[in-house]
């Protein structure tokens, strides 16, 4: 065996971060938490160059080019192999021929926890959540697209809005920031209650997307007139839509709850490129008489701001990951621990009706903007929550995506109709256009 003295360029294995331990545990046979980011380019994607770009980023994103491995107390991450001579990796780069957000291959494979797909002018990266969260995956696809465009002959300045791909990954990027932020004596987080569940008939293996493309100017003017942020406005409209669908009488005592994931990087000043987000819940008890949008906005005013303060986020974080820091929990074999983690993950899903994750505006260098039409983000549906929504913007338009494994479009319909009633222009696109997909 060859013996090398120099420090290895990348660790031979990596611990999962605190949130990352949840996702391998909650996976089922047919599902795992896989989400997608995509960029629509102006020209069709060249697969050979794309593969080159993917291979070239192997050293820069060591947390992504990994696969899960079973340990006795915890699963952990192991780097995928790379051909020493050609630099080729085993990342799957292929043309899209299935519904988005299919489950990722995990354990016992050389493929990493993400795959790169292309279809005509769409370049998509689908990532398993244990590797990183949305914010970090967005950084990856930005860098990947930049590298791809560079190989395509476009001059792109490294750094700035992009991660510098010529430097080594820093300690901070690889850090488990949950652990760094954890405090023993944090204030308790508010108690979670089971929320209203919208459960249209599920179609296993199906995946319906509805993209609502909305001009930023329209929605900005509207939210400004109410004196709230765009996210708050979208959450309010979501509540309006949830009110309008016929609610299940049996669940009338449960509140309607929207979960809003929050990236903690800004709040705690972390540069982690792995999981580092938490969520805040915004609840509203349904009333016999439907509220108007104004009434909803009044009821919600300040709730989101209140939910994302540093103190509140630290409390949530400590409540969610605190157990993982305790020695008696850590020394239980993973086989047993997994069952507990799985159930707590499932319970956590029951505490919200739907999710709105807002990735905000994607900042790209000018030279890249000219080659990109718009970004997309898609969340997978989960075994319990049939509808998820995600928002991303390029500064001109907002791409609001509904996704779920059901034909039902009632919430999307009510949401978009509510927006149109407010005078906001909307364009709708979908991935299912066949006769049998008709709602």
């Amino acid at each position, binding site marked *: 065996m060859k013996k090398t003295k120099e420090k290895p360029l990348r660790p031979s294995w990596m611990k999962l971060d605190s949130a990352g331990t949840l996702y391998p545990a909650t996976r089922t046979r047919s599902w795992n938490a896989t989400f997608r980011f995509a960029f629509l380019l102006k020209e069709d994607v060249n697969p050979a160059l794309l593969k080159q770009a993917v291979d070239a980023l192997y050293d820069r994103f060591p947390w992504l080019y990994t696969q899960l491995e079973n340990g006795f107390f915890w699963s952990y991450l192991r780097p995928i192999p790379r051909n020493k001579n050609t630099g080729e990796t085993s990342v799957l780069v292929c043309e899209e021929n299935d519904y988005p957000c299919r489950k990722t291959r995990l354990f016992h494979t050389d493929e990493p926890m993400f795959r790169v797909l292309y279809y005509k002018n769409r370049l998509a990266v689908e990532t398993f959540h244990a590797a990183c969260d949305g914010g970090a995956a967005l950084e990856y696809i930005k860098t990947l697209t930049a590298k791809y465009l560079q190989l395509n002959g476009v001059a792109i300045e490294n750094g700035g809005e992009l991660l510098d791909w010529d430097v080594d990954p820093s300690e901070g990027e690889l850090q488990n920031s949950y652990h760094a932020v954890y405090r023993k004596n944090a204030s308790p987080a508010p108690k979670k209650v089971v929320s209203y569940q919208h459960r249209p008939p599920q179609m296993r293996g199906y995946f319906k997307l509805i993209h609502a493309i909305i001009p930023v100017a329209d929605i900005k003017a509207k939210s400004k007139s109410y004196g709230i942020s765009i996210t708050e406005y979208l959450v309010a409209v979501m509540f309006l839509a949830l009110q309008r669908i016929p609610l299940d009488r049996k669940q009338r005592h449960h509140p309607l709850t929207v979960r809003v994931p929050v990236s903690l990087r800004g709040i705690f000043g972390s540069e982690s490129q792995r999981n580092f987000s938490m969520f805040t819940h915004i609840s509203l008890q349904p009333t016999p008489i439907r509220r108007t949008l104004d009434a909803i906005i009044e009821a919600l005013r300040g709730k989101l701001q209140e939910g994302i303060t540093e103190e509140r986020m630290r409390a949530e974080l400590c409540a969610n990951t605190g157990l993982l820091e305790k020695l008696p929990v850590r020394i239980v074999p993973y086989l047993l621990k997994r069952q507990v983690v799985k159930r707590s993950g499932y319970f956590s899903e029951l505490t919200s009706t739907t999710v709105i994750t807002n990735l905000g505006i994607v900042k790209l260098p000018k030279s890249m903007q000219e080659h990109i039409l718009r970004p997309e983000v898609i969340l997978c549906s989960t075994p319990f929550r049939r509808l998820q929504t995600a928002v991303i913007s390029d500064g001109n338009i907002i791409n609001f995506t509904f996704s779920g494994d059901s034909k039902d479009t009632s919430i999307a319909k009510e949401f978009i109709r509510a927006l149109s009633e407010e005078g906001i222009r*909307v364009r709708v696109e979908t991935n299912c*256009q066949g006769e049998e997909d008709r709602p």
Partner: protein
Amino acid sequence: MRCNACNVDVGENHKYCPLCGGGLTDEPPVLQGLTQAPYPALRYKKPKPTPTAIFFFCWIPLVVFIGSQVAFYAGSHYITLLTASGLLCLWTAVVRPISKKYLHLSNFAASNLFTFSFLALVSSCYSLGFKAGVARFAGFGAPILLLIAAAALFSAAMLTRSRRYRFVSDFFVLLLIGIALIIFKRLFWDIDWLTFMPSCAALAALVVLLLMNPRAFAEELHARFHF
């Protein structure tokens, strides 16, 4: 194209409104300059139901249990032989293809189940006072199977260089099973040399790996057993 019911623009090649399923009118879009981005056209096919893990993990011990009971009551060596060959068939048909599919002996647990079912057979036969035939065969069979597993693991570790150290925890499992077997034998039978072998083989394999590259071995150990 537009849907007037929903008051939204809809892409060019849509036959109906994606939201309400209603018809479209051929009006110019309100939002100009947006390019349509199609997805591959797919037809939904209901996925075939896959046998669940529970099913797989339950039926082998069940077969063994029923088989051993039948063997005990019938007191027949033929039935015992039949159970054993039935198990062998199961192993060939189900367990082996799985462990072959995943190179890393990933479903090592599944293969171990086979060994465990043999152990169950032995223990149930013993507690029922049936010492002949089955018990003797299985009493020798279990350690031999473990020994074969240890040898297979070791050769696989030596052949696949990049994965050499990943077998560490599997060897540990073998070691533990071997030790459990010795305790079991000590409690119920006299120790015979065969029961020592699996533990010795697993231990030897671990020592060989350790000597080959102590640092990598330590790293592997840390990865596998970090808490």
